[in-house]
């Protein structure tokens, strides 16, 4: 693969920020988009746009076919067994909330528990807290080890018969830890628990194969997979997904409506109420097509090579502490500098053209566990190169000098 050619596909990478070459290390928060996505959006709105599902006229036909076509692309991307296992949502957050409100809330009660982990994103914590207030279920939390790994021994102990649901991240957005989700799924299933995997940070980087993993639900956001904002995916194993109750009511999700009684549509429509994000989904299809042309193993290996290069460079700077050092981790570097607040690190990086994210990364419990108020995070994507890493490394001496 020609990295320069790939970088040319991303218009934002050609921009300067603060008068400097842009080194974008914030793909974990949201990925940049290849030009084909913007082009497809413009073309779609200009020549093909109309509402879907409810029309016979030409434009509504073109829109509907293009929209539904993307479901097949997502099915392929996830290697799902069926196309109607793919539900379009507004994002990872909405996907998790849908399962919380319409699967876990109605089926679990006071004597049940769900199991999450200390490294979850707020999106995989707060929905469970909200519904636990309603159905009285218990929330158990698997702790994280000092190196950022999930404490699998604790997991085994916590996975008691009352645990009916396990919701776990595939890859930590803060630490980069890649969790042993296959093992977790197998153990959970042996325990009679259903499993949701939060794939927000895995889908952009590695092969995610539903039939291989065997999870009951898998969720991720299009905007982190080089697609438009406002689109998410909820994958569900058909027999389990079919048990999910209707959640949002509205157009498309019904079979017939009457004041005496309404009946509901089949999957996937039953869980997609109202006019969907038509253009967003179609742009996402374009992003998936683009991605399919670049070997996923090449992409991931390239990211890991950059991670390795970056970590070697960091050895020069003992003042920098990296959280999350478990072998086999993904290309995310979460770091703190003694005596310098993360916001100041972020601003100084930014003044030098380097975009890193600062704050708690929506993982406050993890911040507390590592006793830091906030951190800076450089997340690496396949369009990053060594020059980006060098630029990032070159800011550290400036920070030390400035705040020293």
């Amino acid at each position: 693969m020609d990295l320069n050619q790939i970088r040319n596909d991303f218009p934002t990478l050609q921009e300067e920020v603060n008068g400097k070459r842009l080194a974008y290390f914030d793909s974990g928060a949201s990925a940049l988009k290849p030009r084909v996505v913007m082009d497809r959006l413009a073309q779609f709105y200009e020549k093909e746009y109309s509402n879907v599902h409810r029309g016979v006229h030409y434009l509504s036909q073109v829109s509907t076919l293009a929209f539904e076509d993307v479901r097949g692309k997502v099915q392929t991307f996830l290697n799902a067994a069926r196309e109607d296992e793919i539900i379009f949502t507004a994002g990872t957050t909405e996907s998790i909330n849908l399962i919380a409100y319409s699967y876990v809330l109605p089926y679990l009660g006071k004597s049940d528990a769900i199991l999450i982990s200390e490294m979850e994103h707020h999106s995989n914590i707060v929905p469970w807290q909200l519904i636990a207030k309603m159905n009285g279920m218990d929330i158990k939390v698997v702790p994280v080890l000092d190196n950022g790994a999930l404490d699998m021994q604790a997991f085994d102990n916590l996975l008691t018969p009352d645990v009916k649901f396990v919701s776990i991240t595939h890859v930590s957005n803060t630490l980069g830890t890649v969790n042993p989700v296959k093992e977790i799924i197998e153990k959970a299933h042996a325990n009679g628990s259903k499993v949701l995997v939060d794939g927000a940070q895995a889908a952009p980087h590695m092969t995610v194969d539903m039939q291989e993993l065997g999870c009951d639900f898998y969720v991720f956001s299009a905007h982190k997979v080089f697609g438009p904002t406002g689109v998410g995916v909820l994958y569900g194993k058909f027999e389990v997904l079919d048990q999910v109750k209707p959640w949002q009511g509205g157009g498309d999700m019904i079979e017939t409506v009457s004041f005496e009684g309404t009946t509901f549509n089949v999957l996937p429509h039953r869980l997609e109420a109202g006019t969907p994000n038509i253009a967003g989904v179609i742009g996402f299809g374009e992003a998936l097509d683009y991605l399919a042309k670049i070997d996923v193993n090449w992409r991931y290996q390239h990211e890991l090579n950059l991670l390795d290069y970056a970590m070697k460079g960091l050895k020069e700077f003992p003042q920098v502490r990296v959280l999350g050092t478990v072998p086999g981790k993904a290309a995310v570097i979460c770091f703190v500098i003694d005596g310098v607040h993360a916001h100041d690190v972020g601003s100084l990086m930014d003044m030098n053209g380097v975009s890193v994210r600062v704050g708690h990364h929506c993982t406050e419990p993890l911040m507390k566990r590592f006793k830091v108020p906030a951190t800076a995070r450089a997340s690496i994507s396949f369009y990053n190169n060594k020059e980006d890493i060098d630029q990032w490394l070159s800011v550290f001496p400036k920070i030390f000098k400035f705040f020293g």
Partner: protein
Amino acid sequence: MESDLYQQLIMNHYREPHNHGKLDPCTCHAFGKNPLCGDEVSVYCIVDQNILKTVQFEGAGCAISQAAASMMTEMVSQMQVDDLYDLYERIDQILKGELESGELSGELEHAYAAIAQFPMRTKCARLPWKTLVNALQGKTENISTEND
């Protein structure tokens, strides 16, 4: 342009449907409805020794759904039930546009192929077929082709 979808043959079947009316008694029957547009079809069959001796339909709805029902009754009467399932699959392929015009035989198949050019209307043509198959298989759940 009109002629593509509303070919003369389809319009003839729509205006003067064949095998129309309730069949009572019958050995099996089923009802199909597409709620979005309101198309309805009831199919009645008399099956004897695995042969579809008589098939009739009743219904209301668009020209495509009603003509497709009428054309269907022409094609399937006196058929072995197993052969009929094969034909159902073939019609499905035609409606999906998976067969070339050279692979089609007879004007009825060509009429279905004309409908295939209008993807939003193929569900109308599919409704009577799915209803027939459900009747033969004794299925009683709601039949709709709006999400096929």
